[in-house]
């Protein structure tokens, strides 16, 4: 289920508001009706993306081991048009194209971390959900350690005094 709670600025494209699976399932019936209406009024309707999804957007790789690798990677990559989802969760067309790219590259023998690095090179750390220690994030890793050490020291002093 892809909730589009985190919608973009209203002026931005439909690309940023993916269809939910429920809506997509309703499309064939809807398409017939739309076609009928189009013929009836011959007025151009605003078209949602009409191209079919990329070949590997919704199709798994034949090799289960490689598919598992691809799935693990896709779950840690951010969908750029629906930013609080991973590309594995999102129905946005661009997420489908990213899944296609991840799967075809893994099928071609590329390492998952190389694909992640390729994307980070283009979109920055933001595209990856995997935490990394960097110039800006190191306090997140160091502060809990310092707190643990401080708590341990206080506890040790107290217990020694109590004895």
């Amino acid at each position, binding site marked *: 289920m892809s909730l589009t709670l985190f919608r*973009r*600025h209203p*002026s*931005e*494209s*439909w*690309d*940023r508001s993916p269809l939910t699976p429920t809506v997509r399932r309703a499309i064939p019936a809807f398409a017939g009706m739309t076609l009928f209406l189009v013929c009836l009024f011959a007025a*151009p309707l*605003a*078209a*949602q*993306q*009409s*191209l079919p999804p*990329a070949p590997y957007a919704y199709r798994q790789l034949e090799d289960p081991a490689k598919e598992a690798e691809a799935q693990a990677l896709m779950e840690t990559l951010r969908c*750029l*048009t629906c*930013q609080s989802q991973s590309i594995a969760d999102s129905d946005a*067309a*661009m997420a489908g*194209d*990213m899944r*296609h*790219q991840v799967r075809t590259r893994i099928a071609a023998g590329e390492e998952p971390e190389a694909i992640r690095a390729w*994307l*980070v*090179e*283009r*979109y*920055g750390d*933001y*595209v990856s959900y995997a935490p990394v220690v960097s110039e800006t994030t190191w306090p997140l890793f160091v502060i809990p350690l310092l707190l643990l050490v401080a708590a341990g020291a206080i506890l040790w002093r107290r217990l020694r005094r109590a004895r």
Partner: protein
Amino acid sequence: MRWWWWIPLMLFAGFLGVAAYQLTQPKDDFVPSAMVGKPLPAFELPAAADGMSGVSTADFQDGKPRLLNIWASWCLPCIAEAPQLEQLKQDGAEIVGIAIRDRPEDVAAFLARHGNPYTRIGADDLSQVQLAIGSSGVPETFVIDGKGVIRYQHIGDIRAEHVPILLEKLREAGE
């Protein structure tokens, strides 16, 4: 009670203050491309509509700076920016288009209805070039210098106030 016992509470209050302030700030949804300053990746796209030429990296390496407009006929803000692209063209900018996930007939209909400011339009049916240049949606506009290096990225539709900025960036790229 010793005064320094209050330090943790103060730190916590400070943290709450920062968090509360950040919650009131508008969310910045734009994902800037990390490719600005780097050369265009190698690509070759077929034409997106009959009568247009396709786009390849080599088209950007002849010494002339250009605008690269990432758009699609199904994208509503792309309609909104069409007059601004026309203005940029009249002001001497050469605009190369890349149509994302589009059909030739839809592209042709869009151009017939909203004008054609493009010298070339490539068809990027799997968003491959879009991903390769770090673009995260449509429309986006890149300034590419004469050596094929990405110099500037504009995210979202081009409004009237952005036209002089893009012209200036284009001029800078030509120096």
